[in-house]
């Protein structure tokens, strides 16, 4: 492309060249004896029209001069203004396609592609050394391995740090509040390259027990609880009943990456017996490759005494870019949606290409005239492509506006944590560049085919033939485009259909309890406030008693674990009189108060519920779920009542045995997709193992709403103990919805894409059929004149529709069979090749296509043979 300023200089040069010519001609005439005035007139006349000469000369500069480009754009704009319907449909089609893609790319760009918001993010890595058999959790090291590694000299790693989260209760100013705390090594923030906005970071000395009562506040907590006052530095706040000195506040942007409200130093020494796995981050020394770092880590770990008894091949040692940790789970599904949405763009392109083809055949006369007047084929093709590129760019601009809105909706509807780094997601220059590039490319590609097809013919043919169209290559191309559109739409619809069916199956799962009318909240009972198990028992009983007195509350209870929410406590069983309980037989252990089963709506099959008779001094009792009873006391499990069980310990003491007093229904614990599990329940009043009951949920059955009950529930707890904070106040319906939110989100998104695809494909089908009928008015008119009934005409149109739909259907279904495998992980009780779904989608598409053909069909049946034949 020639640049505008360069063109400007040439322009001036050309004028000067022509003026010099004219002056020399005048000069020559004067020398021959003509008077200056006559000489000037004659020379001018002989020379001709300067402007015209300049213009034709300029054309020789040829190719893509800026002026030619501007002229093409102007011409294209005029052409578009002259056919507003075409322009509107094409722009809207592009806007939908590009908008959907831009929205999706904005999310992918922000979540997956953009570098982490830390200095030199490519030097940040995550370390891992863990058993290959360990399925849960991300990359991690045990705290012991980490402590030993950190103490060793290293060439590859500049620094290593770790963090883990825990809940802490903030008391003092205002209501007690449960916060998420991050427990970190002193160098955690400096490893990331972040320093506090005010105050200082931790020092190594603060990792020592006794010096560790210092805290860094998050920017949000600082603003909300401490009014953003810098004077907070040096003051004390109370966390879990202990005073911590505030030494700093994080920068506001830090919360994009880490949500913790308070940061405290890690002072706990690793316990060699337990070995807790912790995520470990490190900053590589400058110039160190990940590969070299991995080698150093592997050899360092091999030298550690703690790893001596590990069998070779059972562990996986790895160094991963840190960005992977942020995006790990979201990556595949975001890429899947990117793929899906690109189908929508392809369909949009095929649609516009079709519109252009139809438009071009309407303009054959115009194109023919231009060719006859000497415009080369390249010139005309360029002209036509400019037009489609212009349409695409306008569509792209509208699409970007749609995308900004779409991204907001997308992020708002996505369940929390589903899209990583969502605060960082914005429409930035990269997104704009990509959107513009895609628009231009789309415009060029879908302009090119029609332009080439419509300029292939001899201009004479265009000029001499009547307005009637003859089926030609453009016609074939149109069909190919529609078939392609329909195939793509089928693939997307099949995906969406599978997810819809899977989601319906998921919703139909009976979890074994009733989700409606159940409200709950969580409390964390710190050891400072509740030193003994009996304190928890007493507090629990008192809270339940008062909750029950709230008007509109039918029953109240508590549980340390509720279905569909983490955590789950699982262990083995030992049954009195049955020696061969397999070790692998694991059951959920749940601590509950009386009335748990009525409150949760879990069926009691036989026996009784826990009640006030079950206390610390009475005989230990337990309730088991039906599947356990049936497994060990077949056939119906009733024989279980009165039998005894205990934990799977080698040497049970007499006091460890619990007598079975009731049998209840199995419930879903980990998620609706996981099915019902086995449960064993313990009464709170007899349960003494502190760590399992320090975090409990109170559960109410009531017809009142969460918002309605919240003030009363708060009041009950605060009257009894003002330092206990209520957290996660929610209904069981919310918990259940949250557990299927991921599937719901995926289903909604793909359904929207599929609907867009179907809409665009049906518009495309309509366009071609309508054009077909219009072009065949003459033929259909002849048929009617020769006695064809309207039924025959309908048959013609239906046949034309089927010619498009059936190949599209077949190709699409073959494509779908290949592609829907990527959904495997998201599907519940539905196979990716579910025949019913394939059939249903085929039906929907056929219906859509026939509806698209309806209007053209009506027009065809109304053809008046006289008018049709006269309109030559």
């Amino acid at each position: 492309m020639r640049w505008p300023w360069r063109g400007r200089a040439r322009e001036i040069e050309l004028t000067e060249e022509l003026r010099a010519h004219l002056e020399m001609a005048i000069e020559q005439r004067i020398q021959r004896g003509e008077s200056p005035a006559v000489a000037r007139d004659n020379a001018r006349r002989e020379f001709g029209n300067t402007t015209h000469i300049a213009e034709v000369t300029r054309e020789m500069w040829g190719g893509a001069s800026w002026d030619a480009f501007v002229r093409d754009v102007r011409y294209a704009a005029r052409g578009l203004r002259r056919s507003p319907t075409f322009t509107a449909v094409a722009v809207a089609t592009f806007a939908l396609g590009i908008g959907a893609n831009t929205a999706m790319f904005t999310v992918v760009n922000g979540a997956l592609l953009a570098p982490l918001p830390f200095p030199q993010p490519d030097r940040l890595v995550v370390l891992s050394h863990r058993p290959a058999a360990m399925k849960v959790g991300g990359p991690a090291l045990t705290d012991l391995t980490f402590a030993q590694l950190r103490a060793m000299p290293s060439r590859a790693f500049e620094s290593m740090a770790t963090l883990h989260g825990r809940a802490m209760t903030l008391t003092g100013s205002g209501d007690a509040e449960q916060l998420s705390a991050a427990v970190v090594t002193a160098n955690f923030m400096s490893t990331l390259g972040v320093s506090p906005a005010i105050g200082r970071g931790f020092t190594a000395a603060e990792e020592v027990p006794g010096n560790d009562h210092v805290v860094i506040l998050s920017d949000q907590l600082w603003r909300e609880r401490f009014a953003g006052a810098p004077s907070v530095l040096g003051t004390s706040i109370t966390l879990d009943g202990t005073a911590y000195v505030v030494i700093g506040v994080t920068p506001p942007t830090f919360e994009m990456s880490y949500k913790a409200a308070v940061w405290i130093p890690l002072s706990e020494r690793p316990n060699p017996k337990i070995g807790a796995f912790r995520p470990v981050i490190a900053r590589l020394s400058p110039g160190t490759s990940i590969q070299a770092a991995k080698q150093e880590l592997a050899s360092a770990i091999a030298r550690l005494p703690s790893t001596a008894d590990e069998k070779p091949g059972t562990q996986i040692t790895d160094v991963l870019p840190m960005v992977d940790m942020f995006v790990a789970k979201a990556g595949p599904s975001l890429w899947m949606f990117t793929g899906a949405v690109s189908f929508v763009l392809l369909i949009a392109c095929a649609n516009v290409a079709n519109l252009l083809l139809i438009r071009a055949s309407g303009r054959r006369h115009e194109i023919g005239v231009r060719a006859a007047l000497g415009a080369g084929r390249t010139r005309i093709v360029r002209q036509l492509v400019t037009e489609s590129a212009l349409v695409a760019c306008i569509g792209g601009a509208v699409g970007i506006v749609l995308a900004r809105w779409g991204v907001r909706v997308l992020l708002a509807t996505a369940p929390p944590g589903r899209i990583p780094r969502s605060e960082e997601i914005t429409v930035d220059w990269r997104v704009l560049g990509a959107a513009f590039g895609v628009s231009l490319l789309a415009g060029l590609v879908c302009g090119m085919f029609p332009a080439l097809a419509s300029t292939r013919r001899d201009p004479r043919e265009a000029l001499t033939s009547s307005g009637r169209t003859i089926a030609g290559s453009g016609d074939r191309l149109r069909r190919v485009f529609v078939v392609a559109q329909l195939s793509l739409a089928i693939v997307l619809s099949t995906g969406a259909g599978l997810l819809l069916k899977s989601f319906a199956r998921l919703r139909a799962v009976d979890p074994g309890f009733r989700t409606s009318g159940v409200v709950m909240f969580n409390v964390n009972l710190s050891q400072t406030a509740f030193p003994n198990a009996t304190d928890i028992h007493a507090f629990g009983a008192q809270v339940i008693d008062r909750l029950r007195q709230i008007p509109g509350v039918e029953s109240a209870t508590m549980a340390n674990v509720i279905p569909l929410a983490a955590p789950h406590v699982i262990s083995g069983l030992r049954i009195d009189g049955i020696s061969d309980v397999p070790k692998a037989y694991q059951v959920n252990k749940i601590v509950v108060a009386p009335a748990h089963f009525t409150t949760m709506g879990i069926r009691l099959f036989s026996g009784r519920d826990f009640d006030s008779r079950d206390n610390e001094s009475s005989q230990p009792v337990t309730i088991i779920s039906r599947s356990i009873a049936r497994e060990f006391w077949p056939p119906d499990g009733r024989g279980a009542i009165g039998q005894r069980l205990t934990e799977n310990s080698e040497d049970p003491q007499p006091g460890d045995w619990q007598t079975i007093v009731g049998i209840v229904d199995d419930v879903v614990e980990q998620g609706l997709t996981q099915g019902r599990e086995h449960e064993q329940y313990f009464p709170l009043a007899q349960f003494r193992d502190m760590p399992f009951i320090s975090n409990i949920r109170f559960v109410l059955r009531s017809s009142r709403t969460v918002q309605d009950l919240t003030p009363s529930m708060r009041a009950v707890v605060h009257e009894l103990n003002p330092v206990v904070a209520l957290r996660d106040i929610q209904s069981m319906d919310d918990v259940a919805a949250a557990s299927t939110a991921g599937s719901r989100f995926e289903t909604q998104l793909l359904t929207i894409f599929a609907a867009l695809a179907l809409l665009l494909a049906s518009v495309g089908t309509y366009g071609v059929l309508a054009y077909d009928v219009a072009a065949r008015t003459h033929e259909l008119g002849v048929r009617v004149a020769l006695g064809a009934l309207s039924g025959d005409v309908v048959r013609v149109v239906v046949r034309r529709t089927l010619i498009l739909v059936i190949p599209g259907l077949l190709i699409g279904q073959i494509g779908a069979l290949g592609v829907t495998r990527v959904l495997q992980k998201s599907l519940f009780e539905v196979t990716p090749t579910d025949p019913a779904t394939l059939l249903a989608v085929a039906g929907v598409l056929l219906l859509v296509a026939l509806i698209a053909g309806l209007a053209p069909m009506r027009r065809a049946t109304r053809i008046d043979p006289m008018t049709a034949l006269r309109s030559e």
Partner: protein
Amino acid sequence: MSGGQSRIELLQGTLDFIILQTLRWEPQHGFGLAQMIRAHSSHVLQVDTGSLYPALHRLERAKLIDAKWDRSDKGQRVRVYRLTAAGRKRLAAERTKWERMTQAIAGILNPPIAEGES
């Protein structure tokens, strides 16, 4: 001016050949070229400026000639065109073609056995 009928409009393609041929001797500006072509063809070939300049710029773009700014004898700033190596090559090829063409045409106009004259 004089003798309109005796002038011949140039066919497309012919002009390019004539320009290349005329530039063979020395570099020349547009006006000079027009003068030379008229003189060399004994005032038969009329070069229209509306054809000359597009042809010059077209040949320049095809790199058969190149141009630079210079001063004329009278000190006027003029754009002077010169044959390039590629232009010379093209000219040689075109010349052969034209010579064969003129021979052929001459042959048709003056057949070896002229009727009614022998």
